[in-house]
């Protein structure tokens, strides 16, 4: 059975939980006080969906997004992108729209885009409603899921859906 390799990159503001999502997906662990991403070039994991193996090559931003230093190289050849925001920080949802725009302009054509509202375990501190986020995701033709890297809710599902 052929393994399909997929380059996937993560985008979103610093601190929304991009690396935590990846860590949950790849190693199924969570680290509450994780610092900004250091040392993670990219991770890979193979999953099977409908008898087809997909090998994800997941690129994290390495913190380059923090001071507007994300290089176009980052998106090159990506088949999919997950744009992450923090449902407890409305600002991260606003900037998400900029990330989406940047991807549309500079990302590769035929990119599959997914929007993840992370930290769904912190529902009581919610600042962004599911409805708003879903409406936006639909408007840009992106997949949408609310995820929690803490409880693992929807994390695997999101990655499966992308494939």
């Amino acid at each position, binding site marked *: 059975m052929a393994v399909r390799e997929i380059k996937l990159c993560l985008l979103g503001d610093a601190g929304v939980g991009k690396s935590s999502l990846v860590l949950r997906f790849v190693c199924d662990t969570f680290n509450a006080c994780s610092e900004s991403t250091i*040392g*993670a070039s990219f991770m890979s994991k193979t999953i099977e969906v409908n008898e087809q193996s997909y090998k994800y090559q997941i690129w994290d931003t390495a913190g380059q997004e923090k001071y507007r230093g994300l290089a176009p190289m980052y998106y090159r050849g990506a088949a999919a992108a997950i744009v992450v925001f923090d449902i407890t920080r409305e600002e991260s949802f606003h900037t998400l729209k900029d990330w989406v725009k940047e991807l549309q302009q500079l990302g590769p054509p035929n990119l599959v885009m997914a929007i993840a509202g992370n930290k769904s375990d912190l529902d009581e501190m919610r600042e962004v409603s599911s409805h708003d986020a879903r409406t936006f995701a639909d408007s840009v033709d992106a997949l949408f899921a609310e995820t929690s890297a803490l409880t693992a809710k929807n994390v695997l599902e999101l990655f499966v859906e992308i494939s």
Partner: protein
Amino acid sequence: MADDLPTEFDVIVIGTGLSEAITAAALTRIGKKVLHVDKNDYYGGQWAAFTFDKLLAWIEKARNLKSGEKLPPYIQDTDTNQKRLLLSNDVLTTLNLEVECYCDKAPEIMKDDRSTDGDEIYNIEEIEMAQSQRDADNDESSESPQSQDPSSEDVEKTPNQHDADKSENSKSPQLQAPSSGVADQVGSNQAIRDRTAKEFTYQDLKDLWRRFSIDLLPKLLLCRGPLVELLIKSKVARYVEFKCVTKILTYRGNRLVQVPCSRSEVFSTNLMSMLEKRMLMKFLSFCIEYEKHEDKFKEYEQRPFSDYLKSWRLSEDLQHFIIHCIAMVEKNVTTIEGLAAAQCFLQSLGRFGETPFLWPLYGVAELPQAFCRLCAVFGGIYCLRMTVPSLIIDETSNRCTGIITDEGQKISCSNVIIDSSYLPSALLSDEPDKEKSISRAIFITNKSIYPTETDEVILFSLPSSDLSYLIRGLEISAGSMACPEGLYIVHLTCLMKSNAKDDLQEVTDSLFNFEENSGKDGNKKPKVLWCTYFNQIGYNVKERLPSNILTVDPIDSEMSFKSIVAKAENMYHNICPNEEFIPSPPDPEDIIIDDTSPQKNGKETGENAGFSGCEENEEIRMEDNEDENTSTTSSLKPNEM
């Protein structure tokens, strides 16, 4: 934005050119804290590559930049023992800029309101439309009924749409997505054939803006050069994909001919007689291990290479091939330099393909970005669009102690690496240093200079007619992800003699047509649709700076990357004298993934877990997997170096 930056670093790097990027990566790799900044909103400085619209913007900016007054470079701080070195924003690194357009510009007036100012607000409806079209294409993959949609014409005009239209729409200048498999490749060849009749207009070029990736400073990697070894060792090779240069051309008489590279090509070529072939092979065999036969060249060591070749009684043609196409040096170099250059070429043959050169997909500008990423992965902090107004210099120790940001914040550091074009003009030579400056031309053409059925990356090496200098050219097509299908980008480069256009005019005229039907072979040569000429300038630093400020020239005139890597290694060892230069990440087998304590360790292992999934011989990713690749690359694991 930068107010939450840490205020202490080991090294602050100003400018994101390749040697700065390599050094920055090497420093964080051994745990140094690095702040890496660039005044532009893109990586690379003079090493950048641009989409067509961004190139136009860059040209506009470079044209309007006036060199400022030469102000005193230092300001004394009154109450401390410090002075400030004022950095500048107006050192001219690009001179003699000219732009010429030879394609139909008319439609632009009609569509003027849709100018491609990259950042403009896009119309969400159009995006949606493009996307639904994309979906339809994905579903049906062949003929898409969406392209018949009456509104699709509107979509085509918008520069910001997804270039997703895979369908064959004869009106559309959008060609299909280049990231494609074999099936698509067949389709795209078809597309080229269908499109030979098409006249590209200036508006087409603008509409296709995002398909271009046009390098300011194109160079080639020697397959066994130091940069390739460094890319493999540091694993940065995983961030970039490469294509082997497919052909090397030169002039013979006034005709472009292919330079035979491999042994079999030498034997099968009809460019030389049997006797010449034998002479050539004999000479090349000697070149590969010339150091062992010192007696054979000792006498000529410091004399011109051309004299030495004469002593081998090689024919004029062979001498030309060896000097200009194998050693790729100018005629006046010494024998020892010529032999070293030829050896370098020969050693790189056959490693990844027929020719000894690699070209990165999307262009050379990917390389600084890739090393910056490595730097960031190990904790380096990146700020683009950040100007640094001044460096703080302690007068007692005569050392730089930090920088002042544009927001007045003081950030301390123990070393500074700086692109010399950021220095105040009063510290730089008045005139460009011609050894550090080059003449460049970029052409967008409608046809290859050496048309074949396959997708090519062509290097050509052409001496000027008086043989006084060497012009190297590079033609890149859609397969290198640097230009749209049906179009070609040709880069010409030579050392700066007077100005770019004069230096390159002669070769330009012999390669291209500028007007329709000019000359008797008018329809054979490629037609230039658009072109630009410019000089990239390096200056000398006149004054001695404190020893912990290291300067880097903004560009490098060499064709390959030897001096760039040497420069980076040199700067690194200046700061960390006893450390290894970019050690390889640990061997994946040695890492135990520890699920229970992911803190820090978890991250380290995470990265390496990624590596474990890859096979050893994948160290450098190539576009076309030729048979040699696996055998040659697998024999070059980092531990053998």
